């Protein structure tokens, strides 16, 4: 059994929100009850907090970092517990919130500050939607090399807070590798920054890394600078299916070859079946190549030859078909407005992926599983109700293979039965001290993060 540490936010009683004060800071139209704002907020909160707890009394949408800072100063003085959010698409991810008096949304902090095209960087406010940013970048033939869940709704701030990306990790790394600078409002309402706007910079501590994946527990990021990449001239994907042992050979051959897939994912049989509209009982490997056209053609050809030599089926996909396939994959791995899905982030040593799929097949044959072949990170999704015990068993397996299983989205009932984060090892005490230093009163997203932080 695990114990939730709530000493930092012991007082679970309500601190009444002072509406006049908030309205004076943010403007009357920027302060709302959850119901006034949009029914989606109440629904999300019900799942983020679990039953029996008071939902936040208000949601505030400051339209500048300065106003957000003033809101936080006010909250700090009044002792309001604050749940930061963007568009709210991942509000339910992570541990159950123990208490929240106020939702602070960055949705109106949505200015694009600077797209330095020649420098391959973009600076934007936290509430800018990922989709809008990509649209902007596409006009210059560039893109942000992230493929987060709920790409249409997700804001940049939410993506950073949850370190959420997907298959593109293969070539580009994670959110942490993309983030060059941040500004944030601290728990006490002061605005601070770290990093900068250039692609190389070692001045000062790398607070970008600290904030990436910190789930709104350390401060509220208001602005960020990302590294961006030029779009490639050609793109093609290959779906390889067949015997697991042969697929494993494809994986290890590709990783040891000069081939440079920008994505290479293992997909569990149900997921592969969904994508191909043909029932299958074996996992698949999905590879994506983006480069200059002759290189893409050659790489795809090599993969197909390799597959053939191993008696595996390989289908090449380009154009709309390719785009659709990857979109479908995203949807299966995190569908918007499907609160009943259980979504986990998982990790196993890359070479253990096939074992992991065997385990999954045995214990949860319907699970949608995806593992990035190079990093060993991935997703596990259940569209039907699951038992906490199953998740715990799978977690144990991941841990035995140097990995983890984090329950991002699940019913409050499940989250009450297990620690969504699991054990984080010897560094937990340091993490708790970091939290205490940045948020001494424990008012930011209490309970949402590892070890009850």
């Amino acid at each position, binding site marked *: 059994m695990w114990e939730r540490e709530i000493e930092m936010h012991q007082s679970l009683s309500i601190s009444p929100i002072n509406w006049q004060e908030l309205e004076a800071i943010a403007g009357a139209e920027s302060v709302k009850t959850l119901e006034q704002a949009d029914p989606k907020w109440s629904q999300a909160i019900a799942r983020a907090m679990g039953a029996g707890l008071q939902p936040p009394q208000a949601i505030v949408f400051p339209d500048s970092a300065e106003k957000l800072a003033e809101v936080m100063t006010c909250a700090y003085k009044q002792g309001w517990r604050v749940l930061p959010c963007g568009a709210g698409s991942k509000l339910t991810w992570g541990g159950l919130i123990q208490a929240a008096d106020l939702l602070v949304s960055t949705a109106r902090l949505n200015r694009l500050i600077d797209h330095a095209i020649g*420098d391959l960087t973009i600076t934007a406010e936290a509430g800018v939607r990922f989709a809008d940013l990509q649209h902007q970048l596409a006009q210059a033939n560039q893109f942000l090399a992230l493929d987060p869940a709920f790409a249409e709704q997700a804001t940049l701030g939410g993506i950073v807070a949850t370190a959420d990306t997907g298959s593109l990790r293969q070539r580009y790394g994670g959110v942490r590798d993309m983030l060059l600078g941040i500004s944030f409002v601290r728990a006490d309402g002061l605005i601070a920054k770290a990093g900068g706007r250039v692609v190389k910079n070692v001045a000062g501590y790398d607070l970008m890394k600290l904030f990436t994946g910190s789930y709104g527990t350390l401060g509220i990021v208001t602005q960020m600078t990302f590294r961006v990449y030029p779009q490639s001239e050609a793109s093609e994907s290959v779906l390889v299916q067949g015997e697991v042992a042969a697929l494993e050979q494809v994986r290890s051959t590709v990783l040891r070859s000069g081939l440079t897939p920008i994505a290479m994912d293992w997909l569990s049989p149900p997921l592969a079946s969904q994508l191909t509209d043909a029932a299958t009982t074996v996992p698949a490997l999905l590879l994506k190549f983006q480069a200059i056209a002759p290189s893409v053609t*050659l790489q795809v050809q090599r993969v197909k030859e390799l597959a053939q030599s191993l008696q595996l089926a390989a289908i090449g996909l380009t154009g709309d078909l390719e785009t659709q396939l990857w979109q479908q994959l995203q949807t299966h791995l995190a569908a918007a407005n499907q609160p009943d899905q259980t979504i986990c982030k998982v990790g196993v040593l890359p070479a253990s992926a096939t074992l992991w799929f065997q385990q999954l097949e045995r214990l949860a044959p319907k699970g949608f599983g995806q593992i990035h072949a190079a990093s060993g990170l991935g997703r596990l999704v259940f569209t039907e109700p699951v038992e906490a015990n199953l998740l715990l068993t799978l977690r144990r397996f991941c841990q035995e293979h140097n990995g983890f299983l984090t329950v991002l989205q699940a019913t409050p009932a499940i989250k009450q039965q297990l620690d969504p984060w699991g054990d984080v090892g010897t560094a937990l005490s340091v993490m708790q001290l970091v939290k205490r230093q940045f948020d001494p009163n424990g008012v930011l997203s209490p309970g949402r993060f590892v070890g009850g932080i």
Partner: protein
Amino acid sequence: MLAPEKNATQRNWQPIIQEFITVLGEKGVVRRKEELLVYECDGLTSYRNRPALVVFPRSTEEVSQAIKICARHQLPFVARGSGTGLSGGALPEDDSVLIVTSRMNRILNIDLENQQVVVQPGVINNWVTQAVSGAGFYYAPDPSSQIICSIGGNVAENSGGVHCLKYGVTTNHVLGLKLVLPTGGIVDVGGSLPEMPGYDLTGLFVGSEGTLGIATEITLKILKTAESIKVLLADFTSVEAAGATVSDIIGAGIIPGGMEMMDNLSINAVEDVVQTGCYPRDAAAVLLVEVDGLAIEAEENARRVEALCYQNGARNVQMATDPEARLTLWKGRKAAFAAMGKMAPDYYVQDGVIPRTKLEYVLGEITKLGEQFGYYVANVFHAGDGNLHPLVLYDNAQPGALEQVEALGGEILKLCVKVGGSISGEHGIGADKRCYMPEMFSETDLETMQWVRQVFDPDRIANPTKIFPTPRTCGEAARSHAAEQFKEIERF
């Protein structure tokens, strides 16, 4: 320039030394003055300070024991790898214990299947590539000091190299760390996979310059060697044209493995010394571009880069594919720093970053600053990521020269910040640039960073005066100086 002898402190070192000997053995503790001499400075030789004691632990446990002794007696300690740092990061603090990792030099595990290697901190950077190159892998971050600098030092400085444009710097290649905290406690952060649950303490530690503890085990990602590599050397009659070419290459969607530029002064310095014959003396600038990937891709990209060079007015573009020919083209660039040593008795290397698109403007301003101060400034830099290394040539024998050159260096840093850049791209802040931190960061920014330090090192004993400005250290001007003792090794 030796600092004046410190007043002897009240501390009775004898029993403390005994404690260290008990833990580390006689051989693990150095305290004779003449033996301490080499540890007075790192690559920034104009800053010197004698440590009270130098210790050589061999294991995580011994590091922990040593730090516990420091903590018990509230002795400041400074970690040191190979001492090649260029910002005074390993400069001993007053009355401090220097903890040298050179005996922790084992590669602990090589896991090719999962493409990772676990090393002790004293392992030298290029040993890692050597250990895995037979299987076709390499460790990407390649500081030009890579034949001597330690992985622990790389981690602490978040070091870069010529090939970091495409593949990233140290922080993008570290998966996990075993740390001994300044309290002596041992924790594991990160692991064998990226993005382990919890705060990214691995990412926070990388680049923390020895102020958050000592890394005693480091898990590194290794990459597959590219199938083909091509190097191009283009010469231009104007710096603007070379700069425009850099922008065009990036604009064309090509991300070279590395992209380096040298100006006329550097070209001539190099030709004086190594006579490569491939760097035209009358060129205003040369651009070196390395492209890699599948053969077909490297070829095509090399062709495109070549065309862009000519479009921008390059007079000549040379191309090399086989390793030897590639080395020849790189040779001048690699010898650039050493060559400066022949041009002037001393040189001072600066490390600033600017947005790539501000290159022409900043180079023009640097020339003006040089004229204003009366010094030649040669420019050798990582053009691809805007990381400048202006080299100020001077003669330290002239009274006041160092101070003037330092002031010039400071102006260059301020210029970098003014155009939206940074005061360090890869050498770190250390003791050298801490007084320029307020140019980039507000008091609140710095206070927030200090929160991190407060968590890891509440007693302020780990490299306590580094990175952040203090009234005491920044009363006097920041000092900097080229690394005399590493003259023979090229520097980037």
